[in-house]
């Protein structure tokens, strides 16, 4: 008898750890690692929560995994950056609306000594070919993230498929987030493709510097996707819509544009003029 009471008390104690979920309204935002790791969401969300009382709980994953999480119905809203994967998600009928909230760009970073001699260039595809020709180490996220997808698109433009890359010794697929890729590239003296937001806020650059930037093909756009109520009736769609609407509102766009790390702007709001 006593033991039953103990067990009940234990379960009660365990459940009492999550009183927040019941007390206030909250949504799960499946997002890319780049908007989380750069600190953007942590910086702008308090204003939204203060206004609406809705807490946004960010589960940061690579875009591929974030989309998969939403597809399973485990998120209420998506914030990602892989146009092709997003189009497929919409085509499958999982999404109700897809709106661009911001853009920045990708950069190819590499060691300052620049073994492939690509530094200062603006042609990302040519730079990757030069890195391959030099056999210089290149770190790939390999995690189906938006950045990984962008990287593979650039390689393909230069005539290299994922299968060909996998056979190369200098091509190092780490299967991890942007920060892990930068840590690895920093330790190996390797090149890698990074979103600018994570790059600017990253604290362990080591010998890495920007090697290539300013190519139109390095555009990186972020979209917020609301889920289709017909497929995702269990999701908190009304609260999710409020956050999506806020992101594209004047207030949300101003907050995104005002976000800075070390005095540098990381994201360009673009809801009114999508790229």
């Amino acid at each position, binding site marked *: 008898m006593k033991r039953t009471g*103990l*067990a009940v008390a234990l379960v009660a104690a*365990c459940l009492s*750890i*999550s009183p927040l979920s019941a007390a206030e309204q909250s949504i799960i935002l499946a997002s890319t690692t780049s908007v989380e790791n750069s600190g953007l969401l942590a910086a702008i969300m308090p204003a939204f929560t203060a206004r609406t009382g809705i807490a946004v709980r960010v*589960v940061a994953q690579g875009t591929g995994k974030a989309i998969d999480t939403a597809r399973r119905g485990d998120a209420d809203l998506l914030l990602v950056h892989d146009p092709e994967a997003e189009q497929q998600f919409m085509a499958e009928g999982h999404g109700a609306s897809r709106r661009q909230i911001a853009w920045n760009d990708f950069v190819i970073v590499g060691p300052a000594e620049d073994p492939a001699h690509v530094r200062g260039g603006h042609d990302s595809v040519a730079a990757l070919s030069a890195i391959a020709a030099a056999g210089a180490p290149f770190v790939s996220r390999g995690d189906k993230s938006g950045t990984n997808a962008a990287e593979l698109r650039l390689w393909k433009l230069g005539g290299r498929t994922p299968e060909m890359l996998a056979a190369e010794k200098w091509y190092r697929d780490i299967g991890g987030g942007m*920060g892990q890729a930068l*840590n690895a590239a920093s330790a190996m003296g390797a090149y890698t493709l990074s979103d600018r937001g994570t790059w600017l806020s990253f604290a362990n650059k080591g010998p890495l510097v920007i090697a290539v930037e300013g190519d139109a093909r390095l555009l990186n756009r972020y979209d917020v996707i609301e889920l289709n109520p017909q497929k995702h009736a*269990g999701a908190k769609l009304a609260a999710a819509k409020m956050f999506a609407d806020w992101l594209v509102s004047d207030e949300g766009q101003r907050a995104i544009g005002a976000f800075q790390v070390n005095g540098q702007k990381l994201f360009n709001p673009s809801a009114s003029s999508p790229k």
Partner: protein
Amino acid sequence: MHEFLSIVSLSLGVSLAATAIATAVSLPVGYALATIAFPGRRALVVLANAFFGLPPVVVGLVLYLVLSRAGPLGFLGLLFTPTAMVIAQAVLAAPIITALVHRAAERAWARYGDELISDGATRRQAMPQILAIIRADIVTAVLAGFGRTVSEVGAVILVGGNIRGLTRTMTTAIALQTSQGDLALALALGAVLVGISISISATVFALAGSASSAGSEEA
């Protein structure tokens, strides 16, 4: 600082709750495995010992699929909550505590079991005595289970999602700080975690020491 304290307290809260639940299950199970002969007992003992090293990411993955809204228990809405983390950690700690309790209870039962039964106690009635005899081993088992839960990252990051202010524990915070390249902060958090592990170890030795000296007095 406030965030740091909330991360530490969430870590400890989740791990303590998981350890408590695992202990509540493992004590009677470990005792039963040691004292009651039933078909499949040996298989269960082997299983408990095998799950000693259950890979946390596998537990995390299976629980993720079970707790996902598309999964069988999805209607509970537990994915990405501290409760999901407690469940994952309890699953990881329970076999460790069960196996250690079983081992100690088996020895104690071999030595004192007949005596207790001849005094007229049933196996169930003898449980408090046996557990009292092996209390030092139980403390070790519980602390081993707690050490497993508090230091674990693979399962809690999968089912908890590392949500700031809700499911971010010390281990997942270390993973995040590392991914932001903030190795100094990651290391500081790691130092706190190691400090906790050392405290656990010190506690184990202190308790085991005092218990064994108490035991020698009995003998």
